[in-house]
């Protein structure tokens, strides 16, 4: 791979909360068009890394380069406008607005933030709601829709921003197996359609393994392994820290 292909370059970032090293010198790169899975036990620092990269949290040290630009000191809205965005693990809908308005805000202020024409933005929002299967719910208030739909909406909102790299933070948490299946399909289709680069944070192993080109494993704020899904499953440190022996065996047998 040529270095040009690296769209996101995370260089030795750390976040310390007092004595706790939530993220400790983590370095990784994401290449254009790939899906990178980010896994690890609870408290490993997955969401913290997302917060550091998108500017929601201040880094203790380290730097983040996006498309060759140093975005370490930028605010979240500036980072969002150049095409790096995220969904939230705990959904953050814009309360009091309809589903359509939520997506519309993404469409108005995202990467194409020069979009000043409301009608044009509305059209774009409708198109994206159709893509994720929300068109029937467009006039519902966000307080009236179910969790899977909220997660869809978060995804739609992010898509409406027309990003290049998206951090999907547990978009499947709380979904039942058939909804997970659906969601996986959706992510695959949309990734192709929009040529997205995705960093995928998930606990549902089936989903991560099935979707990722490459997986990064975190434990106690440190990167303990990086490689293809197969390599990760074979890695003894990962099995010890996260997967467990039985699961690793199961995956091996299935392959």
């Amino acid at each position, binding site marked *: 791979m040529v270095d040009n292909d690296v769209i996101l370059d995370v260089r030795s970032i750390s976040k310390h909360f007092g004595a706790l090293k939530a993220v400790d010198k983590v370095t990784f790169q994401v290449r254009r068009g790939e899906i990178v899975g980010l896994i690890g036990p609870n408290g490993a620092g997955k969401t913290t890394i997302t917060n550091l990269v998108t500017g929601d949290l201040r880094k203790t040290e380290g730097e983040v380069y996006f498309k060759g630009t140093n975005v370490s000191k930028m605010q979240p*809205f500036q980072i969002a406008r150049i095409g790096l*965005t*995220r969904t939230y693990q705990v959904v*953050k809908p*814009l309360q*009091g*607005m309809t589903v359509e308005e939520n997506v519309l*805000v993404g469409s108005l*202020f995202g990467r194409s933030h020069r979009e000043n024409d409301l009608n044009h933005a509305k059209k774009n929002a409708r198109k994206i709601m159709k893509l994720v299967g929300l068109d029937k719910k467009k006039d519902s208030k966000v307080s009236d829709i179910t969790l899977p739909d909220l997660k869809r909406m978060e995804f739609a*909102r992010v898509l409406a921003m027309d990003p290049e790299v998206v951090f999907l933070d547990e978009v499947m948490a709380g979904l039942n197996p058939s909804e997970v299946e659906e969601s996986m399909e959706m992510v695959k289709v949309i990734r192709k359609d929009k040529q997205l680069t995705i960093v995928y944070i998930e606990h549902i192993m089936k989903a991560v393994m099935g979707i990722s080109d490459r997986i990064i494993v975190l434990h106690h704020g440190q990167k303990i392994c990086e490689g293809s899904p197969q390599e990760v499953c074979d890695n003894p440190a990962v099995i010890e820290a996260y997967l467990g022996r039985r699961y690793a065996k199961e995956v091996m047998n299935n392959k």
Partner: protein
Amino acid sequence: MEQNNKKFNINIVFIIAAIVVFILLPNFVSGYYIRIFTAIFMYATIAQCINLMSGYMGYLPFGHVMFFGIGAYITAILMGRGLPFILAMPLAALSAIVVSIILGFPVLRLRGHYFAIATIGMNGAIMSVAQNATEITGGAMGTTYPIILLPPGQVYNYFYLAFFGLMVITALIMYFIVNSKFGYGIRSIKANEEAANSMGINTTYTKVSAWAISALFTSIAGGLYGYWMSFISPDEVFDLMFVTNSIIMMLIGGAGTILGPIAGAFIIESVSEFAWSGFMEYHLAVLGIATIMIVFFVPGGVIGTITNRIKNRRIALNKKAEVTNG
């Protein structure tokens, strides 16, 4: 679509008719009612400004009266130096905007109660400047405006029209703001500030701009009020009651709607006029109880509740149509 246009036209016809009625009204009613209406228009303007900050953006600016006072005082000071009102007023409004921007950057980092309390503190600080800079402001004794050499009745009619115009213009501008891209930014901040920021909204810029806009119209109301009263003192124009009243009006009329503050101003001023004449000492208690009842039982306010009903009915009708068609 066509139906929407029709509805829109009917609304416009109603609004224009109301405007014409209010412009002609001074010819038909006594000075007492003119005074009440003038106060209603003034409160509606301030309530509209607070509505932008609180109803739409979620930041309750309790000390917002500071801009009212700044508008009144700077207009008075400049007119005292010989400037005509038409020049003094815009300069006062400009200074209010400058103050709002300077204060906005630090204060709008705070949220909720902290923001409300900080603005009260700032109002206190500015008020004490007005009280103590005696050479410029006349100190705690207050200051006067040049006397208008016209018959009082005519003067009151002019102020009636000026405040009416201010209220209409403020409402119109707020309408365009909240329905614009900027307005979506403002509403997103109320809905969820972190999410708004991560969606590409420059929240600091949006918050400070919204505050500057509401400071602008509040300060114009202040300048007009001072000229109308022809005498102002610090504890009068920096009185938090202006804001408290406006907040109650906004809540009762419907926070987060454009007609809400106007409806609220009409309701509260009429009730308070009635309560005032009925039982002098208890009128604040009546207002207080009414407010609590409204917040508990009709949290959307009058206008909010009505529009919600209409919206729900439309959705229900659409659903019915879908069922029968499909």
